[in-house]
């Protein structure tokens, strides 16, 4: 087991390095010179090329590409992603300011979606090809079709028009005022969560369907003479374990990659 985990972790390294190389190359095939952009700004006009050359020197843009890549990778390994070319602030700082909010929304959206998805998905699978299955499938396919950003707009629209209420604007940390924090984040959590619920419902449905086809479920079914509560409980528990594992993976993934989008 440990050997397997170690192997998987080691296999991740070339993939991650490749991803880093891809991002790096992608950013360096940009037509246009960042130094020229910074100096020229929006006005254009006369550009002092000596100044541009000086800035390129300062930013290290005149070094060979592989040197730039290696120095960047060495920084990334120490969690130093360099400084923003525009604001000059370290990139890691810019990211870590936003990280807690993203994490909070990601974690609660996953929880909310599991609360909706596990019962619905299980219901659809148990009543496969009957009306509850059709309803759940149409609703979950519909959920997938509705963009989160639009649901966000609609939520604000209805809150403002019908309840004359808008969430407090300035971000409040949950450790300072949990109620104010809840009022702010419940809407983003719902608008991300419902869409993820659609994905998880489909996953739960297919997992439960697969589990129901396993031999031991059929055996239980036969022995218990269609003892529906037993079958349901077993299937639900097994599916629950699967979905919880998926949830943990998703949480870990969301924790490792704050930019994760639930598609």
């Amino acid at each position, binding site marked *: 087991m440990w050997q397997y985990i170690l192997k998987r972790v080691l296999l991740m390294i*070339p*993939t*991650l390095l*490749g*991803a880093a190389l*891809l*991002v790096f190359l*992608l*950013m360096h*095939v*940009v*037509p246009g010179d960042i130094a020229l952009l910074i100096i020229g700004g929006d006005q254009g006009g006369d550009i002092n090329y000596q100044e541009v050359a000086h800035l390129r020197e300062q930013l290290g843009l005149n070094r060979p590409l592989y040197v730039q890549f290696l120095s960047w990778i060495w920084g990334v390994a120490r969690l130093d992603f360099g400084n923003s070319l525009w604001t000059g602030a370290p990139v890691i700082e810019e990211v870590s300011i936003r990280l807690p909010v993203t994490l909070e929304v990601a974690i609660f959206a996953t929880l909310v979606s599991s609360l909706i998805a596990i019962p619905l998905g299980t219901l659809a699978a148990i009543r496969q090809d009957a009306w509850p299955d*059709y309803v759940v*499938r*149409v609703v979950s*396919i*519909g959920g*997938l*079709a*509705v*963009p989160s*950003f*639009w649901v966000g*707009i*609609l939520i*604000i*629209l209805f809150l*403002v*028009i019908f309840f004359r209420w808008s969430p407090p604007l300035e971000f409040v940390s949950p450790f300072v005022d949990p109620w104010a924090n809840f009022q702010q984040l419940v809407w983003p959590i719902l608008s991300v969560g419902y869409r993820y619920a659609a994905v998880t419902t*489909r*996953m739960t449905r*297919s997992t439960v*369907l*697969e589990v129901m*086809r396993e031999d031991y479920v059929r055996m239980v079914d036969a022995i218990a003479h269609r003892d529906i509560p037993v079958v349901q409980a077993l299937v639900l528990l097994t599916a629950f374990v699967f979905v919880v594992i998926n949830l943990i993976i998703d949480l870990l993934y969301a924790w490792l990659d704050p*930019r*994760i*989008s639930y*598609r």
Partner: protein
Amino acid sequence: MKEGETALASRRSHPVAVDKGWVSSRAWPAIKKFILTKPLGAAGGAVIVLMVLAALFAGVIAPYDPIAINQRLQFSPPSREHWFGTDEFGRDLFSRIIYGARIALFIGFTASFLGSTGGAIIGVVSAYLGGKTDLLMQRVMDILLAFPLLILALAIVSVLGRSIPNLVLAIAIPIIPRTARILRSSALAVKEQMSVEAARAVGSSHQRVMFRHIIPNVMAPYLIMLTAQLGSAILVEASLSFLGLGTAEPTPSWGLMLSGGAPLYAEKAPWVAIFPGLAISLVIFGFNLFGDSLRDALDPKLRHRQ
């Protein structure tokens, strides 16, 4: 599962040969059967047909010029003259949504076609050649798969710049590894068949084996991936335009219509924020319903995956 396995097994043992008369002789009964057995899929297909018609005949259907500005009409509510109302520039929303179907469908179709076809070629070649080539190609695909679809598209379009061809490319590239992975495993299964081995043994060229035996047998998963990616390609286009990295004003793109003033003026003119979102949701809903049923109909084995 039992049924699915036998269906797949019977198809595997009788590889489909290239048959030019297929479309005329078998397409109509197949379509009829699809409508009867998959009503949800047929409903999705109807939505798609409706959208395609709207896109093709936008000039005839739309009552107004989608980019004509008329400040006197700013934020007119829905009325008999302007069914969906007008936006902050007094442009007719209904006409903009009809023309928007062109952008959405054009980008959706071209991006998912390019992406799935590129992925299919890579997947099939990778499976057929095997060995080091396969390993290398799959690692490259792994690297591309490490990025969520929207994030990779966003990075590519921010590098290439905003234009419709760049947008198509930016959405097609992240689709490649997703199709390549599925098509590779399908092609590997076909490659192991006796018929392919026999064809090689009697001296068929690689080209002949590829075109007569492998490609016809991976058409089903290819079509499934193609339709499955259509909805997400349209969603990514809408998301990119919403984020200000997709199509540029005054192009009538649904995502772009939601970005600009829509959330700001929502209280005053909610129709500006409602109708374009409905259009996006409806077309993706149609493609997803259709794609789902097509998957069920073409490949029972895949039915319970995803």
